[in-house]
């Protein structure tokens, strides 16, 4: 049986991709940001997930105005980095996991989520920057990825409640997948930022930290935050945080924080990052993952 062993929240600022690609990740500006991911990179070596369900939003890269899906799940074999205006990022292609992705897609539709199935698309910084933050610069990404693209650009995005519920249904779907897979789910985007208009540059560290506080534990009150509160408190692009709720919903009733990092600024944005473990009596011990993996080279 496949199981969701961890959830990761992370900003996905495009400039972090640039910093990584140009080797500036330890300079004065970026050093403190990347340092907050060092714990996670080490931890990840022991965890060795087989698949990441990577919740992100497309930033007008794969989807233009002709087709705007609320929830799009990538069921393809392979995804190329998008050319976002300065050429594609020089990072490896992303390998999909069509077996798991189709299983989740089918299960979600039976559970009355109105998914859009995607078989071919380019993936932009929303997906590739978190991979760089968590894995650095490998020749190839060390695991498969199921992209889950959420519309947070054209209004209205899905409600926080709907996102949380989607996470809950994803958990159920993963647990009914017969193969023994170590699956992580990542929620990306945020934290507070506004990229447009005279109000651009807004940062709300207090609100962000309260959001991080409430992400762990056994309350689900984050799901009830209305969109307008994200916009007022965390800037127009702070709405991306609804995607973290899909991740959180997939961890079950309770989750504990293993690691937490917050830094201002990166470009226009407040960086937030958290590693969470489901805390519903599973008692995950990932030390076995290493052994299992090394047996099959």
């Amino acid at each position: 049986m496949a199981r969701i062993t961890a959830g990761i929240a992370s900003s996905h600022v495009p400039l972090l991709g640039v910093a990584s690609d140009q080797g500036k990740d330890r300079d004065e500006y970026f050093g403190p940001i990347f340092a907050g991911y060092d714990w996670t990179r080490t931890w990840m070596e022991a965890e060795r997930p087989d698949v990441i369900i990577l919740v992100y939003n497309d930033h007008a890269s794969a989807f233009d105005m002709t087709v705007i899906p609320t929830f799009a799940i990538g069921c393809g074999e392979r995804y190329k980095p998008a050319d976002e205006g300065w050429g594609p990022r020089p990072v490896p292609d992303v390998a999909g996991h069509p077996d798991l992705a189709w299983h989740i897609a089918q299960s979600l539709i039976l559970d009355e989520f109105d998914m859009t199935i995607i078989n071919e698309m380019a993936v932009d910084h929303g997906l590739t920057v978190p991979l760089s933050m968590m894995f650095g610069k490998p020749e190839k990404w060390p695991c498969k990825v199921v992209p889950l693209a959420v519309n947070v650009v054209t209004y209205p995005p899905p409600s926080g409640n709907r996102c949380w519920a989607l996470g809950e249904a994803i958990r159920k779907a993963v647990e009914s997948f017969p193969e023994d897979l170590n699956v992580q789910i990542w929620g990306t985007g945020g934290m507070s930022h506004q990229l447009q208009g005279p109000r651009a540059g807004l940062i709300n560290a207090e609100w962000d930290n309260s959001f991080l506080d409430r992400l762990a534990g056994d309350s689900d009150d984050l799901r009830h935050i209305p969109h307008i509160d994200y916009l007022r408190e965390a800037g127009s692009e702070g709405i991306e945080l609804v995607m973290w709720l899909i991740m959180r919903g997939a961890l079950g009733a309770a989750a504990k924080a293993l690691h937490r990092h917050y830094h201002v600024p990166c470009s226009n944005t407040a960086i937030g990052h958290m590693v969470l473990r489901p805390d519903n009596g599973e008692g995950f011990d990932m030390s076995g993952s290493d052994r299992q993996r090394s047996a099959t080279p």
Partner: protein
Amino acid sequence: MTRDIHAYLAELEDIPGTRVFTAERARQGYHLNQFAMSLMSEESRVRFTRDERAYLDAWPMSEAQKQAVLDRDYNRCLDLGGNIYFLSKLFATDGISFAEAVSTMTGMDFDSYRKMMAAGGRSPDGQRSIREGR
């Protein structure tokens, strides 16, 4: 979360200095955004850079939209239905960073904007609601 779409949309207009990308803006900016997105290939960027006006004239955009693009007036682009993620293909073509492009909308020069960000960014105080002045 309110389920009445009229109340929902009205609230979105209550945020100072912010244009939320609603259906109304998406419709107005349709071709402006599609134009910007066309800059996702090197070939298009070269053609655009060589003759911006000719490239723009191939799109069914309003003259005001074309002029806003030529002027790189991003606030005006937003007023005319542009969305920042679409427009980012334009400033990437120009080779300027997200932060620099964004700073041009704030009335600050880039250096002051950067300093503001380094000092913790713009405070939300007084920036939450036009109506409530908070």
